[in-house]
Structure formats: structure tokens, C-alpha cells
């Protein structure tokens, strides 16, 4: 008799299953438009040139070792990462009311933030506090907050399926007249428009409006450091005293989760952000990635319009960042996967980075076929 005889087989996490199925597909024309990682025009992962440079610097530095970081992480990483989000001249930073926790990727930052909120927001351990997430949202948002103990994770209107764009009135309607704590998820700063400041506009605007907030930052995409798990939970508080107490409680949460964060990735980012030349080179690398995505967007839209694929396709260029919600329905998605070996999420989400100048014709033609042949 096993103690674990009753443990059921869990369904696999969807996005990783897509990549798995892609890997096992023998079709030479296969295309992976699933998981959100940048690819070059050769369809290859890209280690940023600035990262390679900094890695060499680190390897050559004999004074570095593998000692534990402090619980809240590498200080020069935390402060420089927060500056990236809030701006070098942020008054909140100057007022000493900004702090940060180095975390394992964006997921880790969301996790620590969620755990803190469940313990300390809106009373103590008030698990009934509603958590509003956009409809749709990254599928792991739900799990992060539920696992942190929140019982009521609700959607707010966001995506307009007909317009294939933002449902602004729905959005405002769902959130009006409510006293809300703001938790920003910033996984793509720099990656969206190619400009760090532009992509941080919303976060910085909210600060000028006087909000206390959390901002979960990921450096997975904009630094290409996916597997090093580099994230930062930036905390903007009313004043230094509140900040101090919040950070002390953050330490307790970190200690029972992972004790202290991994050093390699944070070091890479800190060295880069704190050196003007390297920082400048990094911004160029980010722009390279963003520009390629923008050109794939333009190209895909143009080809679909040239094919006269039924429907409108301007959402492809109006949407921003790594992903596009194509508007394809589940049957059309299934067609693409099964008949064309083009892998995407059931929601119709594609990763623009999976497109290259070599496969874009095949993808455009296949999308055309699926829209024409499959209802």
C-alpha cells in the first residue's frame, strides 16, 4: 500500500505541452509559435551579445565566488532593476520609498508579492480579498494567487474578441468605484516598443498619481536570461518607514520559500545596468529583438491581406510585444497543429518570435487555409 496511491495524474501545463508536441513532430516544415521565448531569423535562441561579454567579465573576475546572496538578493541588482522600471530620476526613489526583492523570474516576483498581500493586505490573512486579473491573462497568474491562498480571483474585462483589441469601457466599468491595490506585471519592458521608457510609461504614470504599488519585473525576455531566473519585485510605498516594515516581512516569506535567490543572473544584469557602455549596448540588443518582432508583424499582416484571407488583420500590427491574439478559433488552431504542424496555443495566441523570413509564407498560407476551410 502506498501513501501516494491516491495521487492523480495531473494534466500537463499547456504551454510546455505545446513545445513538447512540437519537439516530437517529425514534419520538417513544423513551426513552433507556442512558448514565449525570442528566436532569431534563423529560428534559433539568441544569447544577447552584451550578455556574452558580461559573462566573460564575470568568469575573469577572480574576486567573485558562489557565496549566498542576502535574503532579498544582490543589492546592486535590486536598485538598478527598480531604476529601470521607475526611471533614473524617479521622485519615489529619491524619496527613499522604493525597495525591491530579487526573485526567481517574473513568476517568483509575483509569488512573493502575492504571499505578502495575502498576509498583510486588507487585514491579516484575508484570503477572501478579491484579486482582479485581466480576461484573458497569463495562465499562471491565476495559479500564483490561488496558491498564495486567495480564494477569489476574478476577471476584469479586457480583450474584445470582436474588435481584437482593448475593451476599454468594459475595463473601466469593471474597476470603477473600487479601492484597489495595484500590482503591475512587467515582463517585457523594452521588448514591446523597443524603448525602455516608453514601455514603462503606465507604471511611472501611476506613481505620479500617488499610488503605492508592486511591480513584478522579469529579465527573462529583455535580457534573454530565461533559465537564470532573474526577476525583481519592486515595491513603492508611501514612505521609508512603511517600506522598511514591508521589506522585513518580505524577508520572512523569502526565507521559507527559497532562503535567498540565485546569484548568476542577477550579477549579469547588475554589471550591465551599472556600466554606461554595457547599458547602452543592452538597449541596442533589446531594440534588435523588438524590431524583428515588429517586422514580422508587418510582414504577416501584409501577407494575409495579400492572400485576401477573410476578416481584418490590422490587429496583428496594432497588438504589441511577443504575442498576438490572432482571433483563430479552437477548430482552426487544431487544424494548424494537426494538418500543418504549426504549433500555437488553443486560445489562438502565437509567439511572433517563432516567425522567420523563411517560414512566414508557409504560416500565412496555412492561416489562410484554416480560416477558409475550418469554421
Amino acid at each position, binding site marked *: 500500500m502506498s501513501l501516494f496511491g491516491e495521487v492523480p495524474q495531473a494534466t500537463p501545463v499547456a504551454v*510546455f505541452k505545446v513545445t513538447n508536441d512540437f519537439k516530437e513532430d517529425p514534419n520538417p516544415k513544423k513551426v513552433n509559435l507556442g512558448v514565449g521565448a525570442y528566436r532569431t531569423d534563423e529560428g534559433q535562441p539568441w544569447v544577447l551579445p552584451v550578455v556574452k561579454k558580461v559573462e566573460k567579465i564575470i568568469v575573469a573576475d577572480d574576486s567573485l565566488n*558562489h*557565496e549566498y546572496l542576502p535574503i532579498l538578493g544582490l543589492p546592486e541588482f535590486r536598485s538598478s532593476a527598480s531604476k529601470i522600471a521607475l526611471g533614473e530620476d524617479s521622485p519615489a526613489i529619491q524619496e527613499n520609498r522604493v525597495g525591491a526583492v530579487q526573485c526567481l523570474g517574473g513568476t517568483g516576483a509575483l509569488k512573493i508579492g502575492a504571499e505578502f498581500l495575502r498576509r498583510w493586505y486588507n487585514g491579516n490573512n484575508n484570503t477572501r480579498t478579491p484579486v482582479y486579473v485581466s480576461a484573458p491573462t497569463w495562465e499562471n497568474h491565476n495559479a500564483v494567487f490561488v496558491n498564495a491562498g486567495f480564494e477569489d480571483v476574478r476577471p476584469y474585462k479586457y480583450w474584445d474578441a470582436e474588435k481584437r483589441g482593448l475593451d476599454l469601457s468594459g475595463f473601466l466599468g469593471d474597476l470603477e468605484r473600487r479601492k484597489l491595490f495595484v500590482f503591475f506585471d512587467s515582463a517585457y519592458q523594452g521588448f514591446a516598443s523597443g524603448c525602455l521608457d516608453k514601455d514603462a510609461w503606465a507604471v511611472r504614470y501611476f506613481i505620479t498619481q500617488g499610488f503605492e504599488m508592486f511591480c513584478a519585473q522579469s529579465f527573462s525576455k529583455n535580457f534573454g536570461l530565461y533559465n537564470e531566473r532573474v526577476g525583481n519585485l519592486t515595491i513603492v*510605498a508611501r514612505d521609508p518607514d512603511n517600506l522598511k516594515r514591508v521589506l522585513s516581512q518580505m524577508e520572512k516569506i523569502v526565507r521559507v520559500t527559497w532562503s535567498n535567490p540565485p546569484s548568476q543572473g542577477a550579477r549579469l544584469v547588475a554589471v550591465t545596468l551599472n556600466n554606461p557602455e554595457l547599458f547602452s549596448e543592452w538597449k541596442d540588443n533589446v531594440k534588435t529583438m523588438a524590431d524583428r518582432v515588429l517586422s514580422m508583424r508587418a510582414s504577416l499582416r501584409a501577407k494575409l491581406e495579400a492572400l485576401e484571407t477573410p476578416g481584418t488583420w490590422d490587429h496583428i500590427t496594432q497588438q504589441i510585444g511577443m504575442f498576438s491574439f490572432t482571433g483563430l478559433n479552437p477548430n482552426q488552431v487544431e487544424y494548424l497543429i494537426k494538418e500543418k504542424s504549426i504549433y500555437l496555443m488553443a486560445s489562438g495566441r502565437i509567439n511572433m518570435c517563432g516567425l522567420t523570413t523563411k517560414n512566414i509564407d508557409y504560416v500565412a498560407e496555412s492561416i489562410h487555409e484554416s480560416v477558409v476551410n475550418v469554421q
Partner: protein
Amino acid sequence: MNIYRLCLGISISLPACFSSWWSEVQMGPPDPILGVSEAYKRDTNPKKINLGVGAYRDDQGKPFVLSCVRKAEAQIAAKKLDKEYLAIGGLGDFNKACAKLALGDDNEVIKSGRNITVQTISGTGSLRIGANFLSRFHTEAREVYLPTPSWGNHTPIFRDAGMQLKAYTYYDPKTCGFDFQGALNDISKIPAKSVIMLHACAHNPTGVDPRPEQWKEIAELVKKRNLLVFFDMAYQGFASGDIDRDAWAVRYFIEQGHNILLSQSFAKNMGLYGERVGGFTVVCKDAEEAKRVESQLKILIRPIYSNPPMNGARIAATILNTPDLYKEWLGEVHGMANRIITMRELLVANLKKEGSTKNWQHVIDQIGMFCFTGLKPEQVERLTKEFSVYMTKDGRISMAGVTSGNVGYLAQGIHSVTK
């Protein structure tokens, strides 16, 4: 006039008053273990000694990066690997090697595929995943029995995961050794299906380990009581200097039919502290059960950090899977363990030289990085205040912080507060 207008502007856009969401958040107490290092850093006494956190130091008191680690890093750098996400369960090459290291190459468990081993965020991360797994799936019993004392972070980890903490006798303050009978008595009363935490070797904080014959009796009793065994092995290789010897209890229990949970850390034995390298293993009934358990571990991991960090696991895997690096590693672990053993002997010799008449044999008998000196809190406080020797209040010292350069001064201090 201008300031007045400015204040009006601010109060309109802020919530009703200048209050914060966090006014009720209390100041958290400093972490007892990591807080010691922070206090040490602030001390300006040139003779200060940090015997707080368990990180190895060489005889110059410096952090030690293993040579096999540097070589592995160079090998990895030459391969120009990408930085794509690892699987949720981590690096496959690491997981396999991690299990083999603990269980032995030829272990029947590995051969039959009835273990699931996932990469975790060092030992803490491993214990946390284990605690979460128990909380969700081990619904027949909510209690985890820890030895008294245990690593300070065990309790908050299990408690935060929703388990209840209980204790069994372990350390005998009269002998500064193992209270074997006390342990057996307590274990014999633990309700069936409860979880019992065992330190595989180099018990933290006491350094007191059961002897093999004692482990055998414990294993039998635990089986009779039908308890779920959770081994914490943070010091394999570090205790005796021998990898297999330090894993003996883990392997024995498995041989005896215990399907254990196991946490491993490579922080100390590979010096990979800040890289956060660890493993969590569940020994299951069969390969089919292992698959089910694996799927559930992934569901637990994803909403915490999605997937683990690559760097340290890659280093560890390279060492474990490359014969000459592995051999070199065994030698270096042996070297670290030996230096600790030498410091133990030196400390006792120096205490005697100072004129101490107390029995310090336990300093030599205890194993691993830590020594439970037997010092009382007031004595510890004096040692810190008067001699700038930093250690935890329970009298635990990290032998790794002792060097041939400071052992004399340390003996002076200890003798001074205990005579």
C-alpha cells in the same frame, strides 16, 4: 501661496488621507541565523570571528571556490549553450546524477524508475516543495516530527505549508551527544502515518549523528510505527569526508522498504551556495506512481518560480557526470571535511592549554560543519559582546569559520565565559 496650491494638488489625487496600505504591517524580527552575519559585518573589532552561518571557509577564513567547480565552469563556457527555460522539474542530467549520488549507482530504486527526482532551489526549496506536496497529498496525517533541536528554518517552512509541527527527543544536553533511548521512546509514541524528519548526516545544529547500529533500530521502529520518512541531507560528503558513508542511513532505510522523501543540497559540498542547487526525491511504489507524483510536483512548482535556475545545476551535473571532475570533487570534499576535523581537534587542544577543566570531548565527537558547544545564551552573549565572536544563541558554532589563525583567540574567549 505656491506650496499651498501644491498641497491641494497632491491631496486631490491621493487616496483620502496620507495613509499607507501598510500601516498595520509589523516590523519582522531579524532572521536568527542570517541575522548573525549581518551583526558581524557591522562590528569593527579586527579580531572578530563569524561562526554564524554554515558556509565553508578555508584556513585563511576566505570563501572557497572548488577547483572542480572552476573547471566545470570553464567547460560549460566553452560549450556556448543557450539560456532557454529548463523544464519545470529542472535539468535532466542533474536530476539523474543527483539521485545516483544519494542512492548509489546501482540502486534498485533508480533502476526500476520508481523515484522521481526534481531540481529545486537548494535545500530550502527542496524542503518547501516537499512540505507543499505533503500538505496537498498526505491528507491522512498533518504532523511533521522534527528532532529537538533541528535547523531553525524547518519549522517555519512546514508551518507555512500548512503542516503541524511536533518534536521528538534527539540531543542530550548532559552529554552533548545523542539521546538514543529518549529518541526511541518518543518515536514509539508517534501516531501512524505521521511524517518524521531525519537528518541524514551531520545533524544541524548539533553535529550529533546516530551510529549505524542505532540507525538500524530507528529504521525498525519507524517501520513498526508506519511513519513517513523525510530525510534532509544537506551535507553529503561533508560529514565524514566520504560520500557513500554519509548516505548510508538514507540507503539503509530504502533497503528496509521505506519509501522516503529526500531533500539534497549542493550548497556546502560543492560550495555552490548562491547558485541554489538542490534536489527533491520521492521514492514511490513503482514507476507508474512516480509519473503521477512527478506531474503533481510540477503543478506545485509552476506557481512558485515556473522552472529552476540553470547555472548551478549545470555545474553540478558537469562535475557529477565527468569522471575526472567527479574524482577531483571527492578529493576536495574530503579536504574540506578534514580541515573541519582538524579544527575540532585544535580547538579542544587550545581549550586545554587555556586551562579549561571542562569536558570538551563532544567538540571532537560531533560531526560536520556545526558544533553544539553547550554554551548557554548568557555565555554566548558575553562571547559576542566581549570577544566579537558571532554565533547563534543556541550555542552552535560553525567550525568552518575556525582557522588555525583564530582558534587560539576563540579558545581564550570560550574559556573566559565558561570558567
